[in-house]
């Protein structure tokens, strides 16, 4: 009897539901289409909610139209939805389906979308929590299938040129289209605040995972926003410094790609070092110069520490000699020649005593520096300074010549730090990007650079091919990754576990069911469980161009959009106007427009005499 009552109740419930669904057929149809599309395309419920919000505009327009039609008779306005429903059914039953659809659309579309969003959200929750599903493995199959579909949708959306500009209207850096958001609010594209690049970021991805594309996008996006802020007078001029520490022909290709992007982003000069431009190490202040020169040479510990001290003292004497520091490698080497230091410090007994003490080792020290400076070549011997360009791409041959590359890295990071703190040159907003820095980190551990950058207000971005490439030991790796307060980017890598651990966990519902034969029974338990915020299995199986952005306890999986130079110039050149030919307008092809030349050079301050008396002939008698 009870069973019959329950069955009758169930049937009545189903009949009532069917009646409601049929009565509200337009809403039911929209709901079914929306939910089905979301299932097929791997959309999150948030997307349906956003669509519903956008569709409310049509409801508003319909309501305004009704208000106007009612001419202020409010009782008519209040009964309009019922009235509209009635007419729509009437039209449908009399074969005027089009009119019925149009009549019901302003209410049915937003309502159907919002209901579909709710149903779809419930479905995802129920599957994930194990509350529903035909098979025990339903949650895994569902998740894998939805991931695949979402990735496909994100990839298609990233191909749309306007969907992923470099920056959005608020100046945030757009990276790509969202596949899935865990602990972050879902948005169609992932936009990273510009300020996050002023902190520290870490990028980990194996070769061919799309790391270069991601970095180029970050650089171009950062420069675009920084440049616009500079032009608006709100910030200092930006300076991007990229250290490509692996070198080789790939580095040149990347440099050219970066140059094109940065030009399109507004950079006036992009220098590629050492192929095209040089810098002068000798502009460093004497103390920094002496320290850098000393650290560029391998020096020992233990019993070799004495020799290291002698070398350090000799370098300081050479740099701080009366008359100013050296301005070139040759000038520095001259100072290590016999007799120079004695002559320079003549009349200063304390320094002369130091020179005398270092005398026996002077030849060896000079030889070591001559060797080092010859191997470094002219690329750090000037002229040129960081302020000469808006972006520098430094190519270090860390694979081919590691010791030289380490010395160069030391010098370059010192020059960049000097640029960040110099009071004699205009301030710059600096982003320092280190690609595969582990290849040259022997002389400057990355953690030191991190701390230095933080204290100088400089953003530091570090990339490595794997977790192990971040640092020399586990402590250093954790220190670098854990202090990446600007976010951590994880691309395909064989060992993502430590990064997943750093990203933390989130609470999920885990359900257990009683099995009865081959099916689930009607009893079971649910409990709160912890799962990785960043799923290591997903991280291991990421496709090329997919990445996880880990920040503030959440993770957004994203398909990175390829950065392309904007086909529209930042400062458009006027379209050439047709030049009328002898036979009338438009008969001759347009000539190149003479662009305005550079402004006339400001009047040079009068040099100490223009020396006319030395170059003008005498008036002969």
């Amino acid at each position, binding site marked *: 009897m009870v069973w019959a009552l329950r069955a009758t109740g169930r049937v009545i419930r189903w009949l009532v539901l069917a009646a409601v669904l049929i009565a509200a057929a337009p809403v039911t149809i929209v709901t079914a289409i929306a939910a089905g599309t979301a299932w097929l395309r791997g959309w999150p419920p948030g997307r349906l909610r956003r669509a519903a919000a*956008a*569709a409310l*505009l*049509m*409801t*508003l*327009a*319909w*309501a*305004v*139209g009704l208000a106007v*039609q009612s001419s202020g008779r409010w009782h008519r306005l209040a009964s309009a939805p019922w009235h*509209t429903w009635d*007419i729509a059914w009437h*039209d449908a039953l009399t074969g*005027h389906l*089009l*009119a*019925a*659809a*149009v*009549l019901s*659309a*302003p209410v049915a*579309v937003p309502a159907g979308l919002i209901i579909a969003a709710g149903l779809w959200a419930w479905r995802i929750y129920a599957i994930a929590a194990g509350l529903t599903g035909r098979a025990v493995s339903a949650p895994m199959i569902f998740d894998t299938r939805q991931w695949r579909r979402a990735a496909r949708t994100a990839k298609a*959306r990233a191909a*749309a*040129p*306007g*969907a992923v*500009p*470099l920056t*959005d209207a608020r100046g945030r850096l757009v990276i790509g289209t969202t596949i899935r958001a865990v602990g972050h609010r879902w948005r169609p594209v992932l936009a990273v605040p510009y300020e996050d690049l002023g902190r520290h970021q870490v990028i980990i991805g194996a070769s061919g995972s799309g790391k270069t594309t991601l970095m180029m996008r970050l650089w171009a996006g950062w420069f675009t926003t920084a440049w616009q802020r500079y*032009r*608006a*007078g*709100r910030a200092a001029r930006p300076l991007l410094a990229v250290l490509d520490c692996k070198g080789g022909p790939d580095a040149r290709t990347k440099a050219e790609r970066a*140059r094109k992007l940065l*030009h399109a982003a*507004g950079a*006036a*000069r*992009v*220098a*590629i070092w050492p192929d*095209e431009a040089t810098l002068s190490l000798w502009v460093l202040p004497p103390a920094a110069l002496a320290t850098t020169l000393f650290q560029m040479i391998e020096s020992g510990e233990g019993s070799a520490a004495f020799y290291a001290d002698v070398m350090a003292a000799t370098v300081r004497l050479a740099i701080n000699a009366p008359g100013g520091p050296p301005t070139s490698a040759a000038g520095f080497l001259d100072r290590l020649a016999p007799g120079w230091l004695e002559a320079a410090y003549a009349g200063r007994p304390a320094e002369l005593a130091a020179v005398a003490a270092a005398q026996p080792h002077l030849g060896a020290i000079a030889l070591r520096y001559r060797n080092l400076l010859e191997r470094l070549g002219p690329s750090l011997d000037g002229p040129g300074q960081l302020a000469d360009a808006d972006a520098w791409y430094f190519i270090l041959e860390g694979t081919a010549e590691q010791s030289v590359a380490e010395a160069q890295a030391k010098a370059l990071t010192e020059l960049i730090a000097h640029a960040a703190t110099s009071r004699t040159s205009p301030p710059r907003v600096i982003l320092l990007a280190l690609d595969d820095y582990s290849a040259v980190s022997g002389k400057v551990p990355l953690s030191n650079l991190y701390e230095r950058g933080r204290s100088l207000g400089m953003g530091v971005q570090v990339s490595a091919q794997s977790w192990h490439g971040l640092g020399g030991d586990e402590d250093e790796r954790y220190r670098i990754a854990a202090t990446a307060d600007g976010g951590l980017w994880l691309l395909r890598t064989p060992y993502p576990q430590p990064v997943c651990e750093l990203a933390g966990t989130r609470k999920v519902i885990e359900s257990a069911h009683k099995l009865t034969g081959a099916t689930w029974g009607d009893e079971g338990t649910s409990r709160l469980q912890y799962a990785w915020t960043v799923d290591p299995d997903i991280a291991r199986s990421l496709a090329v161009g997919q990445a996880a952005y880990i920040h503030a306890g959440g993770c957004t999986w994203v398909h990175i959009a390829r950065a392309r130079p*904007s*086909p*529209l*110039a930042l*400062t*458009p*050149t006027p379209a050439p106007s047709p030049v009328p030919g002898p036979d009338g307008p438009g008969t001759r092809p347009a000539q*190149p427009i*003479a*662009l*305005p*030349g*550079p*402004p006339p050079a400001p009047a040079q301050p009068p040099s100490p005499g223009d020396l006319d008396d030395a170059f003008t002939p005498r008036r002969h008698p």
Partner: protein
Amino acid sequence: MTDPFTTLGLPADPGLTTEEVRAAWRAIATATHPDRPDGGDPATYAAASAAYTALRTPWGRSEAYADLTAARIPHPVPPAPTVISRASAPPAHLLTAARWLPARIHHGRPARLALRLLAAAILAVTTAISGAGTPAIAGVLTGIATWLLLSARGDLAPPPGR
């Protein structure tokens, strides 16, 4: 004094290849070389040679482009205080956006955009002739316009500076 890009008849683009620059110089040099039977045009030849020397390397092109943009890009000025007036002109950024629209369409996905516009037009016409009454038609047309605006953005190239 004209810039080296204009002297060689090239667009001011630092992304020019060395072959393009060389081809442009050769064309001018062939037509103006002083050794030509008609005497050529030594002044133009000299100017073209100087322009080629400046533009023959990527760094040289970058330098020349930098000089040009330095002349064009005004120095940053602090934002002026906002003045609210009753009869204010349309916001400048809307006019700028309208000016850039043809270029954004051309460099985006014009075919897809055309299909979208066609679909929107067909839906709009169908709605208009449905006889469903003005408020509903207005609502649906608004919905079609909203859909078009939101979905067509992806088919346009990003505006300059983004």
